[in-house]
Structure formats: C-alpha cells, structure tokens
C-alpha cells in the first residue's frame, strides 16, 4: 500500500511537470489517469521494493549520483584521449569482477553504473559477479579495485 501511494505521488508529480496546464478539469483528468496507471501496475504485480524502490530515497543516492557524474566525465575524457591518439592505444579485456551487493536491485545499479561509465561495459550479471568488457587493461584494473562496488553496496543499505 505504501508503495502504491508513493507511486501515485511520483507519477502525478511527473504528470504535473510534463503538463504545464493547471485548470481544474485537466488536473482531475491527470489524477484519474494516474489512478488508472497505478491500478494497472498493481494488477501486474510490479509495485514492490524492486519495481518502485522507495527505500533508496535518501541522502545517499544523490551523493552517489554526484560521484558517478564526476567518474563519467573523467572516463569520457580518458576514452576521448584514446580515440584521438594516432595509434589507437586500446587493449580490450573481458573478465568477471566481483559484486558485493546482496539484492538483485543493488547488482542492477552496479551493472548499470559500469555501463554508464565510458570505457567499461557490463555484458552479463552472474552469481559470482558481473562480466565486464573494458576498453583498456587499466580501466579493468581500476574497476577491480572496488571503489564503485563499495559505494553501490552503501547505497543499497540494509534491504
């Protein structure tokens, strides 16, 4: 129930942002549509801690996003330098890196963060870790030091 309520608030907030027209009739229509969307989601049985992870909302996620943004810009610069160097200095490797997250959601966050960072690409999530394709040996070594893994596990928290 908590999840359904929070989903309603989130979806209606999205509707308000995207609409920009605030007459009573349209507001009521938006509310009706949102109720319908939540009802459909409930019927599909996707309104749970995984489909709607409200337990992640807190101060940790914005901090992590900020850190991730810096990482993305740094590695974009690195990959950019490789692309622009006359001798394409790449050394691609495909290896499995350990993942310390307990929940599936935590692993998905980790795998998505890996893919989002230019130069590393998750290809498969398995029981022992995440299979990663890295553009350079150096990029793989940096990932294996586990800084990102530790941060994602912190974000995941207790759940």
């Amino acid at each position, binding site marked *: 129930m908590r999840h359904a309520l929070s989903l309603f608030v989130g979806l209606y907030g*999205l509707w308000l*942002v*995207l609409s*920009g027209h605030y007459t009573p009739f349209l507001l009521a229509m938006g509310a009706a549509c949102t109720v319908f969307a939540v009802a459909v989601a409930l019927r599909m049985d996707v309104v749970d801690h995984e489909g709607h992870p409200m337990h992640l909302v807190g101060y940790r996620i914005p901090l992590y996003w900020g850190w991730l*943004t810096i990482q*993305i*810009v740094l590695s*974009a610069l690195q*990959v*950019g330098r*490789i*692309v*622009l160097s006359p001798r*394409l200095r*790449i*050394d*691609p*490797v*495909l290896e499995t890196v350990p993942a310390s997250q307990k929940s599936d959601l935590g692993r998905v966050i980790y*795998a*998505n*963060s890996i*893919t*989002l*960072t*230019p*130069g*590393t*690409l*998750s*290809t*498969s999530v398995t029981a022992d870790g995440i299979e990663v*394709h890295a*553009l350079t040996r150096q990029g793989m070594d940096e990932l294996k030091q586990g800084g990102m893994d530790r941060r994602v596990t912190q974000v995941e928290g207790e759940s």
Partner: protein
Amino acid sequence: MIVDILSWISIGIGAAFILVGGLGLIRMPDVFTRVHAASVADTAGAGFILLGFMFQAGLSLTTLKLVLIFVFLVFTAPTASHALARAALLGGLVPWSRKPRDPAP
C-alpha cells in the same frame, strides 16, 4: 550575458564529446569497442548539451523537463548498451583483442 557564455561553453563541450564519440565509432575495430566510443557521446555529450540548454531555459518548467530527459537517458542508455553487447556475445562474436589468439582446435 554570463549565462549565455556558460551555456555556449557547455554546448560546445557536449558537441566536442559527441564528435569524439562519432570519430571513435569509425576508428574502433569491433562492436564492443564501438559501444565504448558511443557511450562517450550519449552520457557526457548529451549531458553537457542538456546542461547548456538548462542555462538557456533558466529556472522554469522547461528546465525541469530537461532534467527529466537526462534522467530517462541515464536509465535507458546503459540498458540498451548492455542488451547490444550481450546479444553480440550470445551470437558468438569474439571480442577483438590485442594479443593474437590461439588457433581454434
């Protein structure tokens, strides 16, 4: 005025990242390395260009919508890249590698 300059700097940086991404797309040897190059364009490139647009829009509903575009991009882009790479691997494509591989048995 200052906002205009910031906006143009940001859009310029974004355009440069997208140019580099496109160049990498041509220079890289196989699918996986090309995805790496493309991800420069769709994270850093798109991000800086959207930031430049936000400077133009100021504090308004439009900026909120631009933020939403960025959020959706950040959630969907890695999913697509992952699906592409996984499909290539499952299809039996062997990643290009620096060392010469052993001949197949």
